[in-house]
Protein backbone atom coordinates (compact mmCIF):
# COMPACT_ATOMS: atom_id res chain seq x y z
CA UNK A 1 0.00 0.00 0.00
CA UNK A 2 2.93 2.31 0.69
CA UNK A 3 3.98 2.50 -2.90
CA UNK A 4 0.47 2.88 -4.27
CA UNK A 5 0.69 6.59 -4.98
CA UNK A 6 4.24 6.69 -6.28
CA UNK A 7 4.54 6.10 -10.02
CA UNK A 8 6.86 3.24 -10.72
CA UNK A 9 9.96 4.19 -12.70
CA UNK A 10 9.58 1.03 -14.76
CA UNK A 11 7.93 1.67 -18.11
CA UNK A 12 6.82 -1.96 -18.28
CA UNK A 13 4.17 -2.26 -15.61
CA UNK A 14 1.69 -5.08 -15.47
CA UNK A 15 -0.88 -2.97 -13.67
CA UNK A 16 -1.56 0.74 -13.34
CA UNK A 17 -1.56 1.94 -9.73
CA UNK A 18 -5.02 2.02 -8.16
CA UNK A 19 -6.58 3.07 -4.88
CA UNK A 20 -9.09 0.25 -4.58
CA UNK A 21 -7.96 -2.95 -2.87
CA UNK A 22 -8.59 -6.55 -3.83
CA UNK A 23 -6.89 -6.78 -7.22
CA UNK A 24 -4.75 -9.73 -6.18
CA UNK A 25 -7.64 -11.71 -4.73
CA UNK A 26 -10.04 -10.98 -7.61
CA UNK A 27 -7.43 -11.69 -10.26
CA UNK A 28 -6.33 -14.83 -8.43
CA UNK A 29 -9.85 -16.27 -8.39
CA UNK A 30 -10.41 -15.26 -12.01
CA UNK A 31 -7.22 -16.78 -13.36
CA UNK A 32 -7.44 -19.95 -11.25
CA UNK A 33 -10.97 -20.76 -12.39
CA UNK A 34 -10.22 -19.79 -15.99
CA UNK A 35 -7.12 -21.97 -16.03
CA UNK A 36 -8.68 -25.01 -14.35
CA UNK A 37 -12.06 -25.01 -16.06
CA UNK A 38 -11.41 -23.56 -19.50
CA UNK A 39 -7.75 -23.46 -20.51
CA UNK A 40 -6.35 -26.69 -19.07
CA UNK A 41 -9.07 -28.89 -20.63
CA UNK A 42 -8.64 -27.12 -23.98
CA UNK A 43 -4.90 -27.74 -23.83
CA UNK A 44 -5.68 -31.42 -23.20
CA UNK A 45 -7.71 -31.37 -26.44
CA UNK A 46 -4.82 -29.90 -28.43
CA UNK A 47 -2.36 -32.38 -26.91
CA UNK A 48 -4.62 -35.34 -27.66
CA UNK A 49 -5.28 -34.26 -31.23
CA UNK A 50 -1.60 -33.57 -31.91
CA UNK A 51 -0.64 -36.86 -30.26
CA UNK A 52 -2.52 -38.80 -32.93
CA UNK A 53 0.44 -38.42 -35.29
CA UNK A 54 0.50 -36.77 -38.72
CA UNK A 55 -0.57 -39.87 -40.68
CA UNK A 56 -3.63 -40.56 -38.52
CA UNK A 57 -4.58 -36.89 -38.35
CA UNK A 58 -4.50 -36.68 -42.15
CA UNK A 59 -6.50 -39.90 -42.50
CA UNK A 60 -9.22 -38.72 -40.10
CA UNK A 61 -9.24 -35.18 -41.46
CA UNK A 62 -9.62 -36.23 -45.08
CA UNK A 63 -12.00 -39.13 -44.60
CA UNK A 64 -15.16 -38.57 -46.67
CA UNK A 65 -17.37 -38.99 -43.60
CA UNK A 66 -15.52 -36.27 -41.66
CA UNK A 67 -15.56 -33.89 -44.61
CA UNK A 68 -19.27 -34.51 -45.24
CA UNK A 69 -20.09 -33.83 -41.59
CA UNK A 70 -18.01 -30.64 -41.49
CA UNK A 71 -19.53 -29.48 -44.78
CA UNK A 72 -23.04 -29.99 -43.44
CA UNK A 73 -22.32 -28.29 -40.10
CA UNK A 74 -20.62 -25.25 -41.59
CA UNK A 75 -22.88 -25.01 -44.66
CA UNK A 76 -26.11 -25.27 -42.69
CA UNK A 77 -24.83 -22.88 -39.99
CA UNK A 78 -23.86 -20.25 -42.59
CA UNK A 79 -27.17 -20.61 -44.41
CA UNK A 80 -29.15 -20.46 -41.17
CA UNK A 81 -27.23 -17.35 -40.11
CA UNK A 82 -28.09 -15.73 -43.48
CA UNK A 83 -31.80 -16.55 -43.04
CA UNK A 84 -31.60 -15.15 -39.52
CA UNK A 85 -29.97 -11.93 -40.73
CA UNK A 86 -32.89 -11.30 -43.10
CA UNK A 87 -35.71 -12.24 -40.74
CA UNK A 88 -33.89 -10.99 -37.63
CA UNK A 89 -33.60 -7.55 -39.22
CA UNK A 90 -37.30 -7.53 -40.15
CA UNK A 91 -38.27 -8.66 -36.63
CA UNK A 92 -36.06 -6.04 -34.98
CA UNK A 93 -37.46 -3.39 -37.35
CA UNK A 94 -41.06 -4.27 -36.57
CA UNK A 95 -40.41 -4.47 -32.82
CA UNK A 96 -38.60 -1.12 -32.67
CA UNK A 97 -40.63 0.96 -35.10
CA UNK A 98 -44.20 -0.28 -35.19
CA UNK A 99 -46.89 -0.16 -32.54
CA UNK A 100 -49.35 -3.03 -32.60
CA UNK A 101 -51.17 -5.20 -30.07
CA UNK A 102 -49.01 -8.06 -28.83
CA UNK A 103 -45.71 -6.33 -29.61
CA UNK A 104 -44.37 -6.82 -26.07
CA UNK A 105 -45.21 -10.52 -26.11
CA UNK A 106 -43.40 -10.96 -29.43
CA UNK A 107 -40.44 -9.05 -28.02
CA UNK A 108 -40.23 -11.34 -25.00
CA UNK A 109 -40.76 -14.45 -27.13
CA UNK A 110 -37.69 -13.74 -29.27
CA UNK A 111 -35.53 -14.95 -26.37
CA UNK A 112 -37.27 -18.32 -26.24
CA UNK A 113 -34.37 -20.14 -27.99
CA UNK A 114 -32.05 -18.86 -25.24
CA UNK A 115 -34.35 -20.18 -22.53
CA UNK A 116 -35.77 -23.38 -24.01
CA UNK A 117 -33.48 -26.40 -23.49
CA UNK A 118 -32.16 -27.59 -26.84
CA UNK A 119 -33.41 -31.14 -26.41
CA UNK A 120 -36.95 -29.84 -25.93
CA UNK A 121 -36.62 -27.65 -29.01
CA UNK A 122 -35.31 -30.66 -30.92
CA UNK A 123 -38.22 -33.00 -30.22
CA UNK A 124 -40.77 -30.19 -30.64
CA UNK A 125 -39.40 -29.10 -34.04
CA UNK A 126 -39.27 -32.74 -35.12
CA UNK A 127 -42.94 -33.21 -34.20
CA UNK A 128 -43.93 -30.18 -36.29
CA UNK A 129 -41.72 -30.70 -39.32
CA UNK A 130 -42.12 -34.50 -39.60
CA UNK A 131 -44.31 -35.66 -42.46
CA UNK A 132 -47.36 -36.01 -40.23
CA UNK A 133 -46.63 -32.79 -38.33
CA UNK A 134 -48.42 -29.45 -38.55
CA UNK A 135 -45.96 -28.00 -41.07
CA UNK A 136 -44.43 -31.16 -42.55
CA UNK A 137 -47.90 -32.22 -43.68
CA UNK A 138 -48.18 -29.14 -45.91
CA UNK A 139 -44.98 -30.05 -47.76
CA UNK A 140 -45.58 -33.81 -47.97
CA UNK A 141 -47.81 -33.64 -51.11
CA UNK A 142 -44.93 -31.97 -52.97
CA UNK A 143 -42.58 -34.75 -51.91
CA UNK A 144 -40.55 -32.36 -49.75
CA UNK A 145 -39.28 -33.89 -46.53
CA UNK A 146 -38.02 -31.47 -43.87
CA UNK A 147 -37.41 -33.55 -40.75
CA UNK A 148 -34.77 -36.31 -41.10
CA UNK A 149 -33.03 -34.45 -43.98
CA UNK A 150 -30.44 -31.62 -44.15
CA UNK A 151 -33.44 -29.26 -44.34
CA UNK A 152 -34.33 -30.32 -40.82
CA UNK A 153 -30.80 -29.39 -39.69
CA UNK A 154 -31.37 -25.96 -41.21
CA UNK A 155 -34.70 -25.52 -39.39
CA UNK A 156 -33.11 -26.33 -36.03
CA UNK A 157 -30.18 -23.97 -36.64
CA UNK A 158 -32.50 -21.11 -37.65
CA UNK A 159 -34.38 -21.62 -34.38
CA UNK A 160 -31.20 -21.60 -32.30
CA UNK A 161 -29.62 -18.53 -33.92
CA UNK A 162 -32.59 -16.18 -34.24
CA UNK A 163 -32.30 -14.20 -30.97
CA UNK A 164 -28.62 -13.41 -31.57
CA UNK A 165 -29.40 -11.35 -34.67
CA UNK A 166 -32.52 -9.65 -33.26
CA UNK A 167 -30.81 -8.70 -30.00
CA UNK A 168 -27.72 -7.37 -31.80
CA UNK A 169 -29.67 -5.16 -34.21
CA UNK A 170 -32.53 -4.00 -31.96
CA UNK A 171 -30.64 -1.55 -29.69
CA UNK A 172 -28.75 -0.02 -32.63
CA UNK A 173 -31.98 0.48 -34.56
CA UNK A 174 -33.63 2.02 -31.50
CA UNK A 175 -30.73 4.48 -31.03
CA UNK A 176 -30.77 5.86 -34.57
CA UNK A 177 -31.77 9.49 -34.41
CA UNK A 178 -34.90 10.16 -36.35
CA UNK A 179 -33.37 13.52 -37.35
CA UNK A 180 -31.24 12.01 -40.06
CA UNK A 181 -34.26 10.34 -41.62
CA UNK A 182 -36.19 13.55 -41.41
CA UNK A 183 -33.28 15.35 -43.05
CA UNK A 184 -33.32 12.79 -45.85
CA UNK A 185 -37.07 13.32 -46.29
CA UNK A 186 -36.57 17.08 -46.52
CA UNK A 187 -33.84 16.52 -49.10
CA UNK A 188 -36.38 14.65 -51.17
CA UNK A 189 -35.28 11.02 -50.76
CA UNK A 190 -37.90 8.33 -51.22
CA UNK A 191 -38.73 6.03 -48.32
CA UNK A 192 -37.05 3.04 -49.95
CA UNK A 193 -33.93 5.10 -50.61
CA UNK A 194 -33.84 6.26 -46.98
CA UNK A 195 -34.20 2.72 -45.67
CA UNK A 196 -31.54 1.22 -47.91
CA UNK A 197 -29.07 4.12 -48.13
CA UNK A 198 -29.42 5.79 -44.72
CA UNK A 199 -30.73 3.37 -42.10
CA UNK A 200 -29.38 -0.01 -43.22
CA UNK A 201 -25.73 1.13 -43.47
CA UNK A 202 -26.02 2.29 -39.85
CA UNK A 203 -27.19 -1.11 -38.63
CA UNK A 204 -24.88 -3.10 -40.91
CA UNK A 205 -22.09 -3.66 -38.34
CA UNK A 206 -24.61 -4.90 -35.77
CA UNK A 207 -26.07 -7.26 -38.39
CA UNK A 208 -22.62 -8.75 -38.87
CA UNK A 209 -22.18 -9.10 -35.11
CA UNK A 210 -25.50 -10.95 -34.99
CA UNK A 211 -24.45 -13.09 -37.94
CA UNK A 212 -21.20 -14.12 -36.23
CA UNK A 213 -22.93 -14.93 -32.92
CA UNK A 214 -25.69 -16.92 -34.65
CA UNK A 215 -23.16 -18.77 -36.79
CA UNK A 216 -20.84 -19.56 -33.87
CA UNK A 217 -23.74 -20.98 -31.88
CA UNK A 218 -25.22 -22.90 -34.81
CA UNK A 219 -22.04 -24.55 -36.04
CA UNK A 220 -21.53 -26.42 -32.77
CA UNK A 221 -25.20 -26.98 -31.95
CA UNK A 222 -26.06 -30.55 -31.01
CA UNK A 223 -29.19 -30.96 -28.86
CA UNK A 224 -31.78 -29.42 -31.13
CA UNK A 225 -30.28 -30.93 -34.29
CA UNK A 226 -29.83 -34.64 -33.55
CA UNK A 227 -33.56 -35.29 -33.11
CA UNK A 228 -34.62 -33.65 -36.36
CA UNK A 229 -31.61 -34.51 -38.55
CA UNK A 230 -32.12 -38.23 -39.08
CA UNK A 231 -28.35 -38.61 -38.64
CA UNK A 232 -27.61 -40.57 -41.83
CA UNK A 233 -23.81 -40.70 -42.33
CA UNK A 234 -22.64 -38.65 -45.33
CA UNK A 235 -26.07 -37.05 -45.64
CA UNK A 236 -27.51 -35.59 -42.46
CA UNK A 237 -24.78 -36.26 -39.89
CA UNK A 238 -23.42 -33.09 -38.25
CA UNK A 239 -19.81 -32.76 -37.06
CA UNK A 240 -20.64 -32.67 -33.31
CA UNK A 241 -22.53 -35.96 -33.72
CA UNK A 242 -19.51 -37.48 -35.46
CA UNK A 243 -17.45 -36.53 -32.39
CA UNK A 244 -19.98 -38.25 -30.13
CA UNK A 245 -19.97 -41.38 -32.33
CA UNK A 246 -16.17 -41.54 -32.26
CA UNK A 247 -16.26 -41.18 -28.47
CA UNK A 248 -18.75 -43.99 -28.17
CA UNK A 249 -16.38 -46.18 -30.18
CA UNK A 250 -13.57 -45.15 -27.75
CA UNK A 251 -11.75 -43.46 -30.66
CA UNK A 252 -10.62 -40.56 -28.44
CA UNK A 253 -7.90 -39.41 -30.85
CA UNK A 254 -10.35 -39.33 -33.75
CA UNK A 255 -12.86 -37.34 -31.72
CA UNK A 256 -10.13 -34.88 -30.70
CA UNK A 257 -8.99 -34.41 -34.31
CA UNK A 258 -12.52 -33.68 -35.58
CA UNK A 259 -13.03 -31.31 -32.64
CA UNK A 260 -9.80 -29.46 -33.43
CA UNK A 261 -10.82 -29.13 -37.10
CA UNK A 262 -14.16 -27.67 -36.03
CA UNK A 263 -12.55 -25.21 -33.64
CA UNK A 264 -9.88 -24.09 -36.10
CA UNK A 265 -12.35 -23.67 -38.96
CA UNK A 266 -14.83 -21.69 -36.88
CA UNK A 267 -12.13 -19.45 -35.36
CA UNK A 268 -10.73 -18.68 -38.82
CA UNK A 269 -14.23 -17.89 -40.14
CA UNK A 270 -15.13 -15.72 -37.13
CA UNK A 271 -11.79 -13.92 -37.45
CA UNK A 272 -12.44 -13.22 -41.15
CA UNK A 273 -15.98 -11.98 -40.55
CA UNK A 274 -14.82 -9.75 -37.69
CA UNK A 275 -12.23 -8.35 -40.10
CA UNK A 276 -15.02 -7.61 -42.56
CA UNK A 277 -16.94 -5.87 -39.79
CA UNK A 278 -13.94 -3.74 -38.81
CA UNK A 279 -13.50 -2.84 -42.47
CA UNK A 280 -17.17 -1.87 -42.85
CA UNK A 281 -17.00 0.24 -39.69
CA UNK A 282 -14.00 2.12 -41.03
CA UNK A 283 -15.61 2.59 -44.41
CA UNK A 284 -18.91 3.81 -43.02
CA UNK A 285 -17.43 5.72 -40.13
CA UNK A 286 -17.80 4.56 -36.56
CA UNK A 287 -21.45 4.37 -35.51
Amino acid at each position, binding site marked *: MMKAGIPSPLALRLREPAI*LPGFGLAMGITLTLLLLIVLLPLIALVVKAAGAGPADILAIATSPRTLAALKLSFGAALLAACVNVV*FGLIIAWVLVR*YEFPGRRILDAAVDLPFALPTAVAGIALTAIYAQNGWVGRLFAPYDIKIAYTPLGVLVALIFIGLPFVVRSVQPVLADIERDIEEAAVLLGASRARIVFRVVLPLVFPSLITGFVLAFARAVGEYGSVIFIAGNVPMMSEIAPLLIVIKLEQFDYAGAAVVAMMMLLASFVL*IFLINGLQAWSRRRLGDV
Partner: protein
Amino acid sequence: MSEQRPATPPLPPRERVGQEHRLIRAVLIVVVLAFLSLFLFMPLATVFIEALSRGVMPYRAAILDADALAAMRLTGLVALVAVSVNVVFGLAASWAIARFDFRGKNLLISLIDLPLSISPVISGLIYILLFGAQGLFGPWLKARGFEVVFALPGIVLATVFVTFPYVARELIPHMQSQGKADEEAALSLGASGWRVFFRITLPNVTWSLLYGVLLCNARAMGEFGAVSVVSGRIRGVTTTLPLHVEILYNEYNAPAAFAVASLLALLALVTLALKVALEWRYREERALSR
Protein backbone atom coordinates in the same frame (compact mmCIF):
# COMPACT_ATOMS: atom_id res chain seq x y z
CA MET B 1 -29.75 18.99 -10.54
CA SER B 2 -33.17 20.03 -11.67
CA GLU B 3 -33.46 20.07 -15.37
CA GLN B 4 -35.62 22.70 -16.97
CA ARG B 5 -37.20 21.51 -20.12
CA PRO B 6 -38.02 24.09 -22.74
CA ALA B 7 -41.46 23.67 -24.19
CA THR B 8 -41.02 21.35 -27.13
CA PRO B 9 -42.40 22.64 -30.40
CA PRO B 10 -45.22 20.48 -31.75
CA LEU B 11 -43.77 17.72 -33.87
CA PRO B 12 -45.50 16.35 -36.91
CA PRO B 13 -47.20 13.07 -36.02
CA ARG B 14 -44.71 10.18 -36.01
CA GLU B 15 -46.64 8.57 -38.82
CA ARG B 16 -45.66 11.17 -41.35
CA VAL B 17 -41.91 11.09 -41.03
CA GLY B 18 -39.90 7.91 -41.18
CA GLN B 19 -42.71 5.41 -41.54
CA GLU B 20 -43.37 2.97 -44.29
CA HIS B 21 -46.63 2.85 -46.18
CA ARG B 22 -49.44 1.24 -44.15
CA LEU B 23 -49.57 -1.70 -46.51
CA ILE B 24 -45.86 -2.43 -46.18
CA ARG B 25 -46.16 -2.19 -42.41
CA ALA B 26 -49.02 -4.68 -42.37
CA VAL B 27 -47.10 -7.08 -44.62
CA LEU B 28 -43.98 -6.90 -42.44
CA ILE B 29 -45.97 -7.55 -39.27
CA VAL B 30 -47.62 -10.58 -40.90
CA VAL B 31 -44.21 -11.87 -42.04
CA VAL B 32 -42.89 -11.56 -38.47
CA LEU B 33 -45.92 -13.30 -37.01
CA ALA B 34 -45.67 -16.13 -39.53
CA PHE B 35 -41.93 -16.59 -38.99
CA LEU B 36 -42.18 -16.54 -35.21
CA SER B 37 -45.15 -18.93 -35.32
CA LEU B 38 -43.24 -21.42 -37.46
CA PHE B 39 -40.08 -21.31 -35.39
CA LEU B 40 -41.15 -20.34 -31.86
CA PHE B 41 -44.84 -20.54 -31.06
CA MET B 42 -45.71 -23.80 -32.78
CA PRO B 43 -42.81 -25.72 -31.20
CA LEU B 44 -43.72 -24.34 -27.79
CA ALA B 45 -47.40 -25.21 -28.18
CA THR B 46 -46.66 -28.67 -29.52
CA VAL B 47 -44.70 -29.57 -26.36
CA PHE B 48 -47.76 -29.10 -24.17
CA ILE B 49 -50.21 -30.61 -26.67
CA GLU B 50 -48.11 -33.75 -27.14
CA ALA B 51 -47.50 -33.97 -23.38
CA LEU B 52 -51.23 -34.09 -22.66
CA SER B 53 -52.16 -36.12 -25.76
CA ARG B 54 -52.87 -39.23 -23.67
CA GLY B 55 -54.62 -37.35 -20.89
CA VAL B 56 -53.70 -36.13 -17.45
CA MET B 57 -53.03 -39.45 -15.70
CA PRO B 58 -50.17 -40.61 -17.99
CA TYR B 59 -48.78 -37.07 -17.75
CA ARG B 60 -48.76 -37.26 -13.96
CA ALA B 61 -47.21 -40.72 -14.10
CA ALA B 62 -44.44 -39.56 -16.41
CA ILE B 63 -43.38 -36.62 -14.27
CA LEU B 64 -43.78 -38.44 -10.94
CA ASP B 65 -41.80 -41.43 -12.18
CA ALA B 66 -38.86 -42.25 -9.87
CA ASP B 67 -36.27 -41.68 -12.62
CA ALA B 68 -37.87 -38.36 -13.55
CA LEU B 69 -37.77 -37.21 -9.94
CA ALA B 70 -34.13 -38.29 -9.65
CA ALA B 71 -33.40 -36.33 -12.83
CA MET B 72 -35.08 -33.24 -11.35
CA ARG B 73 -32.96 -33.46 -8.21
CA LEU B 74 -29.75 -33.91 -10.22
CA THR B 75 -30.66 -31.02 -12.53
CA GLY B 76 -31.33 -28.75 -9.56
CA LEU B 77 -28.09 -29.74 -7.85
CA VAL B 78 -25.98 -29.23 -10.99
CA ALA B 79 -27.58 -25.84 -11.66
CA LEU B 80 -27.02 -24.78 -8.04
CA VAL B 81 -23.30 -25.56 -8.24
CA ALA B 82 -22.93 -24.01 -11.71
CA VAL B 83 -24.68 -20.81 -10.68
CA SER B 84 -22.61 -20.53 -7.47
CA VAL B 85 -19.31 -20.94 -9.32
CA ASN B 86 -20.56 -18.46 -11.92
CA VAL B 87 -21.42 -15.82 -9.31
CA VAL B 88 -18.05 -16.11 -7.56
CA PHE B 89 -16.19 -16.05 -10.86
CA GLY B 90 -18.33 -13.26 -12.32
CA LEU B 91 -17.85 -10.98 -9.31
CA ALA B 92 -14.11 -11.64 -9.11
CA ALA B 93 -13.57 -11.19 -12.86
CA SER B 94 -15.65 -8.01 -13.07
CA TRP B 95 -13.93 -6.50 -10.00
CA ALA B 96 -10.52 -7.17 -11.54
CA ILE B 97 -11.48 -6.06 -15.05
CA ALA B 98 -13.77 -3.10 -14.34
CA ARG B 99 -11.86 -1.61 -11.40
CA PHE B 100 -8.21 -1.95 -12.45
CA ASP B 101 -6.10 -1.28 -15.51
CA PHE B 102 -3.67 -3.97 -16.46
CA ARG B 103 -1.95 -5.45 -19.45
CA GLY B 104 -3.76 -8.13 -21.40
CA LYS B 105 -7.23 -7.10 -20.28
CA ASN B 106 -8.74 -7.59 -23.73
CA LEU B 107 -7.12 -11.00 -24.01
CA LEU B 108 -8.59 -11.95 -20.63
CA ILE B 109 -12.08 -10.85 -21.74
CA SER B 110 -11.74 -12.89 -24.94
CA LEU B 111 -10.65 -15.95 -22.97
CA ILE B 112 -13.65 -15.61 -20.64
CA ASP B 113 -15.96 -15.51 -23.68
CA LEU B 114 -14.20 -18.49 -25.29
CA PRO B 115 -16.70 -21.17 -24.14
CA LEU B 116 -19.47 -19.35 -26.05
CA SER B 117 -17.91 -20.25 -29.38
CA ILE B 118 -17.12 -23.86 -28.53
CA SER B 119 -19.54 -26.65 -29.38
CA PRO B 120 -21.22 -28.15 -26.29
CA VAL B 121 -20.06 -31.56 -27.47
CA ILE B 122 -16.45 -30.37 -27.45
CA SER B 123 -17.06 -28.93 -23.95
CA GLY B 124 -17.88 -32.45 -22.80
CA LEU B 125 -15.13 -34.08 -24.86
CA ILE B 126 -12.34 -32.07 -23.22
CA TYR B 127 -13.26 -33.45 -19.78
CA ILE B 128 -13.33 -37.00 -21.15
CA LEU B 129 -9.83 -36.38 -22.51
CA LEU B 130 -8.69 -35.13 -19.09
CA PHE B 131 -10.52 -37.49 -16.75
CA GLY B 132 -11.72 -40.41 -18.89
CA ALA B 133 -10.34 -43.97 -18.76
CA GLN B 134 -7.70 -43.07 -21.40
CA GLY B 135 -7.40 -39.49 -20.18
CA LEU B 136 -4.44 -37.61 -18.72
CA PHE B 137 -5.58 -37.81 -15.09
CA GLY B 138 -8.33 -40.44 -15.39
CA PRO B 139 -6.36 -43.57 -14.44
CA TRP B 140 -4.63 -41.75 -11.56
CA LEU B 141 -7.95 -40.57 -10.13
CA LYS B 142 -9.65 -43.90 -10.68
CA ALA B 143 -6.89 -45.72 -8.77
CA ARG B 144 -7.81 -43.50 -5.82
CA GLY B 145 -11.51 -44.32 -6.14
CA PHE B 146 -12.49 -40.96 -7.57
CA GLU B 147 -14.84 -40.97 -10.56
CA VAL B 148 -15.19 -37.79 -12.58
CA VAL B 149 -16.48 -38.87 -15.98
CA PHE B 150 -19.85 -40.67 -16.08
CA ALA B 151 -20.49 -39.26 -12.60
CA LEU B 152 -21.64 -36.08 -10.88
CA PRO B 153 -18.28 -34.19 -10.96
CA GLY B 154 -18.03 -34.53 -14.75
CA ILE B 155 -21.60 -33.32 -15.26
CA VAL B 156 -20.95 -30.33 -13.01
CA LEU B 157 -17.62 -29.48 -14.72
CA ALA B 158 -19.13 -29.65 -18.22
CA THR B 159 -22.05 -27.46 -17.14
CA VAL B 160 -19.74 -24.92 -15.48
CA PHE B 161 -17.67 -24.77 -18.67
CA VAL B 162 -20.69 -24.17 -20.89
CA THR B 163 -22.12 -21.45 -18.63
CA PHE B 164 -18.72 -20.01 -17.67
CA PRO B 165 -19.07 -16.47 -19.14
CA TYR B 166 -22.77 -15.89 -18.37
CA VAL B 167 -22.61 -13.79 -15.17
CA ALA B 168 -19.26 -12.16 -15.97
CA ARG B 169 -20.55 -10.97 -19.35
CA GLU B 170 -23.45 -9.12 -17.70
CA LEU B 171 -21.41 -7.73 -14.80
CA ILE B 172 -18.30 -6.45 -16.59
CA PRO B 173 -19.94 -3.82 -18.86
CA HIS B 174 -22.33 -2.76 -16.08
CA MET B 175 -19.51 -2.23 -13.56
CA GLN B 176 -17.39 -0.47 -16.18
CA SER B 177 -20.18 1.96 -17.00
CA GLN B 178 -20.63 2.85 -13.33
CA GLY B 179 -17.04 3.88 -12.74
CA LYS B 180 -15.24 3.61 -9.44
CA ALA B 181 -15.80 7.06 -7.93
CA ASP B 182 -18.37 5.82 -5.36
CA GLU B 183 -16.07 3.07 -4.14
CA GLU B 184 -13.04 5.34 -3.94
CA ALA B 185 -15.05 7.89 -1.96
CA ALA B 186 -16.21 5.24 0.52
CA LEU B 187 -12.67 3.98 0.89
CA SER B 188 -11.35 7.48 1.56
CA LEU B 189 -14.00 7.85 4.26
CA GLY B 190 -12.50 4.86 6.02
CA ALA B 191 -14.64 1.92 4.91
CA SER B 192 -12.85 -1.41 4.56
CA GLY B 193 -12.49 -3.05 1.18
CA TRP B 194 -15.09 -5.75 1.89
CA ARG B 195 -17.50 -3.20 3.30
CA VAL B 196 -17.17 -1.14 0.13
CA PHE B 197 -17.80 -4.25 -1.94
CA PHE B 198 -20.90 -5.38 -0.03
CA ARG B 199 -22.42 -1.96 0.66
CA ILE B 200 -21.68 -0.14 -2.60
CA THR B 201 -20.52 -2.37 -5.43
CA LEU B 202 -22.99 -5.21 -4.94
CA PRO B 203 -26.13 -3.04 -4.56
CA ASN B 204 -25.08 -1.07 -7.64
CA VAL B 205 -24.84 -4.14 -9.86
CA THR B 206 -27.78 -6.13 -8.46
CA TRP B 207 -29.69 -6.06 -11.69
CA SER B 208 -26.96 -7.37 -13.97
CA LEU B 209 -26.02 -9.99 -11.37
CA LEU B 210 -29.61 -11.28 -11.18
CA TYR B 211 -29.90 -11.14 -14.96
CA GLY B 212 -26.73 -13.19 -15.38
CA VAL B 213 -27.85 -15.69 -12.74
CA LEU B 214 -31.19 -16.11 -14.50
CA LEU B 215 -29.60 -16.82 -17.89
CA CYS B 216 -26.93 -19.04 -16.33
CA ASN B 217 -29.54 -21.08 -14.49
CA ALA B 218 -31.64 -21.58 -17.63
CA ARG B 219 -28.63 -22.78 -19.59
CA ALA B 220 -27.36 -24.98 -16.74
CA MET B 221 -30.71 -26.71 -16.27
CA GLY B 222 -31.24 -27.15 -20.01
CA GLU B 223 -27.73 -28.07 -21.14
CA PHE B 224 -27.79 -31.18 -23.29
CA GLY B 225 -24.75 -31.64 -25.55
CA ALA B 226 -21.95 -31.23 -23.00
CA VAL B 227 -23.76 -33.20 -20.32
CA SER B 228 -24.74 -36.03 -22.67
CA VAL B 229 -21.07 -36.62 -23.51
CA VAL B 230 -19.89 -36.90 -19.90
CA SER B 231 -22.98 -38.42 -18.31
CA GLY B 232 -22.80 -42.05 -19.40
CA ARG B 233 -26.62 -42.09 -19.05
CA ILE B 234 -26.91 -44.24 -15.94
CA ARG B 235 -30.66 -44.01 -15.57
CA GLY B 236 -31.82 -42.32 -12.40
CA VAL B 237 -28.20 -41.64 -11.40
CA THR B 238 -26.43 -39.51 -14.02
CA THR B 239 -29.38 -38.40 -16.14
CA THR B 240 -30.42 -34.76 -15.95
CA LEU B 241 -33.89 -33.72 -17.12
CA PRO B 242 -32.87 -33.04 -20.75
CA LEU B 243 -31.14 -36.43 -20.90
CA HIS B 244 -34.22 -38.09 -19.40
CA VAL B 245 -36.28 -36.52 -22.20
CA GLU B 246 -33.90 -37.99 -24.78
CA ILE B 247 -33.97 -41.47 -23.22
CA LEU B 248 -37.78 -41.55 -23.15
CA TYR B 249 -37.94 -40.23 -26.72
CA ASN B 250 -35.52 -42.85 -28.01
CA GLU B 251 -37.60 -45.54 -26.29
CA TYR B 252 -40.50 -44.41 -28.51
CA ASN B 253 -42.29 -43.15 -25.42
CA ALA B 254 -43.04 -39.75 -26.96
CA PRO B 255 -45.90 -38.74 -24.61
CA ALA B 256 -43.69 -39.28 -21.55
CA ALA B 257 -40.77 -37.50 -23.26
CA PHE B 258 -43.00 -34.51 -24.00
CA ALA B 259 -44.43 -34.60 -20.46
CA VAL B 260 -40.95 -34.21 -18.97
CA ALA B 261 -40.08 -31.73 -21.73
CA SER B 262 -43.11 -29.65 -20.72
CA LEU B 263 -41.50 -29.10 -17.31
CA LEU B 264 -38.43 -27.69 -19.04
CA ALA B 265 -40.65 -25.60 -21.32
CA LEU B 266 -42.35 -24.21 -18.22
CA LEU B 267 -38.92 -23.39 -16.82
CA ALA B 268 -38.19 -21.50 -20.05
CA LEU B 269 -41.45 -19.55 -19.78
CA VAL B 270 -40.75 -18.67 -16.14
CA THR B 271 -37.24 -17.58 -17.15
CA LEU B 272 -38.62 -15.29 -19.87
CA ALA B 273 -41.22 -13.84 -17.49
CA LEU B 274 -38.58 -13.15 -14.84
CA LYS B 275 -36.34 -11.60 -17.48
CA VAL B 276 -39.10 -9.20 -18.53
CA ALA B 277 -39.83 -8.44 -14.85
CA LEU B 278 -36.15 -7.73 -14.15
CA GLU B 279 -35.87 -5.49 -17.19
CA TRP B 280 -38.93 -3.57 -16.02
CA ARG B 281 -37.91 -3.37 -12.37
CA TYR B 282 -34.44 -2.06 -13.21
CA ARG B 283 -35.34 -0.05 -16.32
CA GLU B 284 -33.82 3.18 -14.95
CA GLU B 285 -30.50 1.59 -14.06
CA ARG B 286 -30.39 -0.03 -17.47
CA ALA B 287 -31.09 3.21 -19.28
CA LEU B 288 -28.25 4.87 -17.36
CA SER B 289 -25.76 2.11 -18.01
CA ARG B 290 -26.30 2.07 -21.75
